[in-house]
């Protein structure tokens, strides 16, 4: 086999094994969105009135509305989780093995990204199956149509995680990522409420939400679940992915160094 593909396969395999070894991570990844779907949505259903906005053709329940956002949430947390594991790898030294491979660094990073995106996909589909078991279903073709959208969003959030991992020097700083990346990205998006609702309360927040790549990611998933292609969201997500990939490649450039000590 081609050496590049051999390495890619091994990196994806290792990501998969690591995921299998961390059962708690899988359970947490599923429990988190399910709590939102079952508990949070029940409370919010009464408070939030939803109008008919594309891609929906009719009035929908709040549970239906937040499914794409929760898919995004699963991928967002997984992206940050793999970023955390990269910081851990660097602190423990195993990152050096990857970085001293004779294959190009960008190829290794992309392989790592594909591995983490594949894990995101598995998690999202298990979540969608559980949601269906709770009676929250999508059009059957939507489950197929959403596949490429999920993959792309996985790459976008994975590359964001990769970039962040190159910036975070110590594991302890990861809490900052939660506060300053995950929460703002998630709450300043269309994951939990439509943006027109946000516009009613604050135009500034509405603008911020509109430019949040996570909003675009959620919208891409939302439309894809109904077999529709949202070109604007797609463009935004592709653009954000490219920017994050370039930043991650810069972050892992050897001239910036990855050492922890200067001995």
């Amino acid at each position, binding site marked *: *086999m*081609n*050496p*590049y593909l*051999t*390495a890619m*396969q*091994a*990196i994806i*395999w*290792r990501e998969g*094994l*690591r995921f299998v*070894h961390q059962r708690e991570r899988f359970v947490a990844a599923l429990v988190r969105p399910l709590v939102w779907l079952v508990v949070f949505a029940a409370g919010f259903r009464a408070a939030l009135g939803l109008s008919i906005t594309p891609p929906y053709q009719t009035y929908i329940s709040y549970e239906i509305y937040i499914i794409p956002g929760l898919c995004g949430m699963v991928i967002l947390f997984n992206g940050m989780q793999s970023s955390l594991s990269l910081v851990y790898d660097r602190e*423990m*030294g*195993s990152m*050096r*093995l*990857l*970085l*001293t*491979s*004779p*294959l*190009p660094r960008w190829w*290794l990073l992309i392989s790592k990204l594909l591995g983490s995106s594949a894990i995101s996909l598995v998690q999202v589909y298990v979540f969608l199956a559980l949601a269906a078991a709770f009676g929250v279903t999508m059009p059957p073709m939507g489950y197929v149509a959403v596949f490429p959208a999920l993959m792309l969003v996985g790459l976008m959030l994975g590359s964001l995680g990769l970039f962040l991992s190159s910036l975070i020097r110590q594991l302890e700083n990861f809490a900052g990522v939660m506060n300053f990346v995950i929460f703002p990205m998630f709450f300043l998006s269309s994951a939990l409420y439509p943006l027109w609702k946000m516009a009613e309360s604050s135009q500034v927040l509405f603008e911020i939400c509109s430019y949040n790549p996570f909003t675009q990611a959620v919208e891409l998933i939302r439309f894809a679940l109904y077999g529709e292609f949202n070109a604007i969201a797609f463009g935004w997500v592709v653009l954000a992915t490219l920017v994050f990939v370039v930043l991650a490649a810069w972050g892992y450039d*050897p*001239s910036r*160094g*990855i*050492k922890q*000590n*200067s*001995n």
Partner: protein
Amino acid sequence: MTGAFSVNGLSHSYGERRALDNVSFDVAPGKFCALLGPNGAGKSTLFSRLTRLITGEPAQISIAGVDFEKTPRQALARMGIVFQQSTLDLDLTVFQNLTYFAALHGISARDARPRIIAALERLDMAERAHEKARALNGGHRRRTEIARALLHRPQVLLLDEATVGLDTATREQITAHLHRLCDEDGLTVLWATHLTDEIALDDQVVILHRGKVLADASARDIAGAGDLRTAFLAMTGAEAATGSSAGGVL
């Protein structure tokens, strides 16, 4: 630049602090070269530069005839590396760790299998192939890492303080094994250490202190009428003897 391994004019700074200052030395093919220096001498910085974990001021580095600055990836392919800090994935078995490494060098699992078996047998590790790395003691982890570093058949093996934390018997076994690899297979070894008892009299010794090469000769020549330890302490001063710079030495 004639040796299996040549460094010429290598300098590196962290801001104002000069960690390496015009370091130059050659190692002949099949030679065991000890890079001897107290903690803080610049050994780890030198290793990070030689393995391209960091880059910096240009220098002439050649690995098995390959120009490291021009074609770093080709040079990395000819180099085996054992880092001071363990780089094993503790949740994977010994065999899985080695297969993963082989793949990072583009070697498929099918091609890697016989190599892994041979490498582990050579280090008396064959019966542990399917144990998780977590279950291994420090000595066996090190042996696994050495076996791993040789899987892609490198011409030069770099080891950064590879015996730190190991007992005397294990340290002797590992250094004896590496000397055998030099003699029998023609492997060139660069062995960073602060322990003089790991060095044989015929080994080449490069003494590094405060980022500069203080001596580059055989251990026998450096030791002169006395022993290597005394000569090393005399060159590097009380700092090395007390380990005051960054921890215990010798």
